[in-house]
């Protein structure tokens, strides 16, 4: 049976259908998960998609993290289930403390949508094993609150432990500390990133197909689990 990936929809989620498309293109099956659900329907992995859950009220992801589904996600993540947080999903993972640090307003104060050059620095995670370490890719970035911050100790720890998964190349698009675009937890099953790999899966609609690797990685991992 093909591995199943749950994609969560919160009120205000936008890229849930795009994440689902990416999973399907990578060969997986998708199970839509509703924010009010209390269990994960037996999925093998979870994607928290991009968007403006709860309108970004209070802080991005601050309200979504208390959704019923998140208790299940946090529990499963601690047990090793692969969880990917994209953009708003990354914000929710930080608010849930599944990942350290926080995302703040872009230093330019503008929303920025651009085709962003990135370097995949760690392929030791459930979501990046299909890449080659140091691989340079181009993936759309679109956010207003994408500046990653954490205290120096945390940043040093992330670097030392190889948990910086994705880094911005070229000019820093949003003021993220150490140009960090995405990070992983210690176990490597939880990854959060600001860029949108689900928008780089078809040459017709994206700048490249470089994003597909995130989804093929986890499916590979699950098939051989």
């Amino acid at each position, binding site marked *: 049976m093909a591995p199943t990936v749950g994609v969560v929809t919160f009120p205000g989620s936008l890229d849930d259908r795009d994440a689902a498309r990416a999973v399907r293109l990578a060969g997986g099956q998708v199970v839509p998960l509703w924010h009010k659900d209390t269990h994960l329907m037996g999925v093998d992995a979870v994607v928290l998609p991009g968007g403006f859950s709860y309108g970004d009220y209070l802080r991005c992801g601050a309200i979504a993290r208390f959704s019923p589904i998140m208790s299940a996600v946090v529990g499963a993540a601690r047990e090793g289930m692969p969880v990917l947080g994209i953009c708003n999903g990354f914000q929710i993972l930080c608010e849930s403390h599944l990942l350290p640090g926080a995302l703040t307003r872009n230093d330019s104060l503008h929303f920025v949508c651009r085709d962003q050059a990135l370097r995949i620095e760690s392929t030791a995670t459930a979501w990046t094993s299909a890449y080659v370490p140091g691989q340079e890719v181009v993936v759309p970035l679109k956010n207003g609150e994408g*500046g990653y911050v954490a205290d120096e100790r945390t940043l040093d720890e992330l670097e030392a432990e190889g948990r910086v998964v994705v880094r911005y190349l070229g000019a820093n698009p949003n003021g993220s500390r150490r140009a960090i675009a995405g990070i992983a937890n210690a176990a490597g099953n939880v990854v959060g990133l600001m860029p949108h790999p689900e928008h780089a899966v078809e040459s017709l609609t994206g700048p490249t197909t470089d994003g597909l690797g995130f989804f093929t990685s986890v499916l590979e991992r699950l098939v051989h689990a």
Partner: protein
Amino acid sequence: MARVVVDVMLKPEILDPQGQAVLHALGRLGFDGVSAVRQGKRFEIEVDGPADADLAARAEQMAATLLANLVIEDFTVRVEG
């Protein structure tokens, strides 16, 4: 009926681009001598019951759990009668 005011500010070491923008705008508008601006949030919360230490403790919990992200923000709580 009691009221609690919670002020949430970014920690000093966190970049505050909105505060910066306000600072520059004040300068352009001719307000001299302004050296720094930080922007934060203020929550006004009405609660049943008396304005006592218990309420202050509950408000601190509200702030720590939801109103502030302790990774990047600090808060103060003030109980009003």
